[in-house]
């Protein structure tokens, strides 16, 4: 933390990547940074796999009726696409990769509170993934990622190992959540009060609370489905005396908050990157920090808006309808704050900023169509159609993935100490944002027209919109291929990034890139907040 820190350019001699180069040094590491990197490799694999399934599904829809796969294969593919994307990519993507890597550095700690537990979470993730892969090779389930009963308990496909895989994976999420909560409470450096925490840390904190509170419910409900499927107990299947709606309540009690597990960390990323890109304090720090907690809390009371036509009571529908309107408010506070942050800033258009713009647009459009489908009478038409599919892809792929890509491009220099090619970065960002719109805007229209989701075959009048959507998805694919190529090349050939290539005030930029094994040469003392760009650089670094 010397005053000259900002100017220091070059590659440090000792850092966490060359602290040990054997395979063993990676597999047995308790270094949060290495664990973050291992998670990065894992989620990129998952993204690739899930994305391949998505492309296969899109190409099947080029023509109505059989195009090149049969109905059962199609049903298995959309199930695998959902399972892989939700549990193996979106949920761990930002918290387990960037949360692990950055959280201790941002709060001035040498590591997370429980480093060995952190390593265990990687292995738990791997075991869960192994079970799911095994099930995939043996045919895979055809239930959809929602596993609605009684279909999921009566289908003859391989449901149980996939359920077990997700069940195990849940523990990895819980462990990570507990680790983050304890770390933030107990390991903040001297002078780092709650109101000086970077907003990414607040977002991760809100996420960790949801992870710890909601994931056990998922474990419980998956266990019950497994018990009914394997042992024949009548829990959800009316033919055996069960209640199918009960499953939906339990499932959405987890899965609605799980949406916030996916989107809250992305919001945290945007709070950080928008401040760095505009070189400006976040317009309303407290509002953003508290709204993360607000989302974590109110998100638990809106699950019934997934069930307006499922057979719940009219009063219940009204209650969940109103509560859903309130959860939208926290997001809108954040959106106005981010836009306000740009006001009178000093903005530079870089690849992360391109993703910020994409994120804002997708979040507002996806979020407001979310409020639209939570409007009870409108949901009656839209429920289980492509409109809902397009809405949640705007949030999940649009916003959450934009957040992931913004984070990847913003923190890549910190993680690996090298810069990627900025021009190609902007090219692929443009491709992805355009391709994304071309993929999912037609799907909103398909939903309006009445195309139900999870349809292998479809009436001819839907075809032109399906073709448009498939065309868009190939653009998306090429965008990702370009990113993959230039990032891999940058690992070896990129120019050294130096300590702080963005001129950011974020605390993580005060250490070298890549950081040393114990994060700092000397432990930092915090004298100001993370986004105070009104101070001249010398003052801000004189800690």
């Amino acid at each position, binding site marked *: 933390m010397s005053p000259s820190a900002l100017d220091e350019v070059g590659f440090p001699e000792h850092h966490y990547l060359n602290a040990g180069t054997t395979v063993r040094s990676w597999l047995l590491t308790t270094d949060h940074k290495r664990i973050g990197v291992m998670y990065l490799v894992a989620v990129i694999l998952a993204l690739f796999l899930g994305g391949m399934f998505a492309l296969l599904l899109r190409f099947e829809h080029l023509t109505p009726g059989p195009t090149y796969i049969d109905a*059962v294969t199609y*049903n298995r593919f959309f199930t695998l696409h959902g399972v892989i994307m939700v549990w193996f990519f979106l949920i761990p993507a930002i918290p387990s990769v960037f949360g692990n890597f950055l959280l201790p550095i941002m709060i001035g700690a040498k590591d997370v509170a429980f480093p060995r537990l952190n390593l265990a979470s990687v292995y738990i993730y791997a075991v869960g993934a192994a079970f799911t892969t095994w099930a995939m090779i043996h045919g895979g389930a055809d239930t*959809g990622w929602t596993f*609605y009963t*009684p*279909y999921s308990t009566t*289908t003859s496909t391989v449901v149980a190992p996939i359920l077990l895989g997700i069940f195990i994976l849940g523990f990895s999420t819980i462990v990570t959540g507990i680790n983050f909560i304890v770390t933030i409470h107990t390991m903040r450096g001297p002078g780092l009060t709650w109101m000086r925490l970077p907003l990414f840390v607040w977002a991760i904190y809100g996420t960790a609370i949801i992870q710890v509170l909601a994931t056990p419910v998922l474990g419980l409900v998956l266990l019950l489905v497994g018990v009914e499927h394997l042992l024949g107990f009548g829990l959800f299947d*009316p*033919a055996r005396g069960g*209640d*199918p709606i009960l499953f939906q309540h339990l499932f959405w009690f987890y899965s609605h908050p799980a949406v916030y597990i996916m989107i809250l960390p992305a919001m945290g990323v945007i709070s950080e990157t928008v401040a760095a890109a*505009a070189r400006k*304090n976040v317009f309303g720090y407290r*509002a953003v920090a508290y709204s993360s907690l607000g989302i974590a809390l109110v998100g638990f009371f809106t699950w019934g808006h997934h069930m307006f*036509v499922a*057979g719940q009571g*009219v009063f219940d*529908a*009204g209650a969940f*309808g109103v509560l859903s*309107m309130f959860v939208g408010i926290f997001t*809108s*506070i954040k*959106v106005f*704050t981010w*836009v306000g942050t*740009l*006001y009178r*800033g*000093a*903005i530079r*258009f870089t690849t992360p*900023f391109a993703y910020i*713009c994409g994120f*804002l647009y997708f979040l507002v*459009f996806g979020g*407001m169509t979310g*409020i*639209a489908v939570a*409007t*009870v*009478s*409108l949901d*009656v*038409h839209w429920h*289980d*159609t492509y409109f809902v599919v397009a809405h949640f892809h705007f949030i999940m792929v649009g916003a959450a993935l934009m957040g992931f890509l913004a984070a990847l491009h913003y923190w890549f220099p910190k993680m690996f100490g090298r810069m990627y090619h900025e021009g190609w970065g902007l090219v692929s960002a443009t491709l992805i944002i355009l391709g994304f719109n071309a993929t999912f805007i037609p799907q909103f*229209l398909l939903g*309006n027209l*009445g195309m*139900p*989701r999870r*349809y292998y*075959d479809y009436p*001819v*009048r839907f075809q032109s919109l399906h073709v448009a959507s498939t065309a868009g998805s190939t653009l998306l694919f090429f965008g990702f291929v370009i990113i993959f190529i230039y990032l891999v090349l940058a690992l070896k050939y990129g120019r050294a990034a130096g300590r702080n290539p963005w*001129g950011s005030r974020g605390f993580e930029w005060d250490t070298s890139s890549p950081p040393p094994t114990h994060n700092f040469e000397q432990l930092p003392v915090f004298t100001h907040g993370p986004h*105070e*760009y009104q*101070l001249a650089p010398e003052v801000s670094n004189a800690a």
Partner: protein
Amino acid sequence: MNELLRNVLFLPEQASTFARKVDSLHYFVIITTMIMSTLVGLTALFFFVRFRRRSETQTTPLLNPPWWLETMFVVVPLAFFLFWFARGYTDYVELKTPPKNSMDVYVQAKQWMWKFSYPEGPNAIGVLRVPANRPVRLMMTSRDVIHSFFVPAFRVKQDVLPGRYTETWFEAIQPGRYQLLCAEYCGTNHSLMLGEVIVLRPDEFDSWLADQRRGRALQQDGAPTADEDVTRQADLVRQGERFAVQYGCVKCHSIDGSPHIGPTWLDLFLRREELEGGQTIIADEAYLTESMMDPRAKIVRGFNPVMPVFKGRLAGPEAAAIVEYIKSLRSEPLEQARSRRPVYEPIRSR
């Protein structure tokens, strides 16, 4: 204006009283959404142009929103959202409250077909006939997994659950044919679980109902439809007829009662048959299906075991369609056993 927006947004025609009502809110919500997301995007771009970074050491003022601005951030969107909710919930309550004078139809869903039963007697598979300008209440249940009754032109959708009844209602305003889709994923042929709602003029509906009471079974399941979309799954009997020709069933089974290589299909359904082994069976759906899949299991006395095995050649829905076709081949009307109030006019039409 209504037509323009409906076409721009790709919404289907408005064929029920509810569709008209809900679409006006639909337009409002979607237009606000598009305006808001464009405004946010444009503001961000404008700020970028206006506040570009001029130097590498540039500092910026510390700005925090005044209290009134933060209040606006909350109050303005919340006012919009609550207005949407109030309008939407009012309509939803109406959708959940069938008028007292509605006509009842019982709906049974199963993998992968729709069955409709009228209290006056008739049953129909795949095709729901209703009168225009009269509220129709549907009492729905499922035989296996969850399905969902979805008619886009009516803007009506309701999940159909096993083990309990759910209800919904609509009032069609325009005679015509409207597609019915299953909207809740229900297995392999989920996307083929289509059907059709035929809205008839009230007088046409009454005469159709009277015909049904006279037991004109062949007319039960809908005349051919011009719209390719609708018929594919709508009419099992016609499908079965096609499959019976395609798979060569009718080369050995007659459909008019004349003797041939295999037993005739006329009046076969529920006929008591004596087997080679001496026992008797009733030719119900189970037996008919078994005879296609494993013809040698139960041979009717007097016939040679020459029929090829169709297991693996006939898909489940194809076999079901052939069964329905066999059921439709009656020399006299089928007894309508499931109806609540069977009122039959004692007319032998053939």
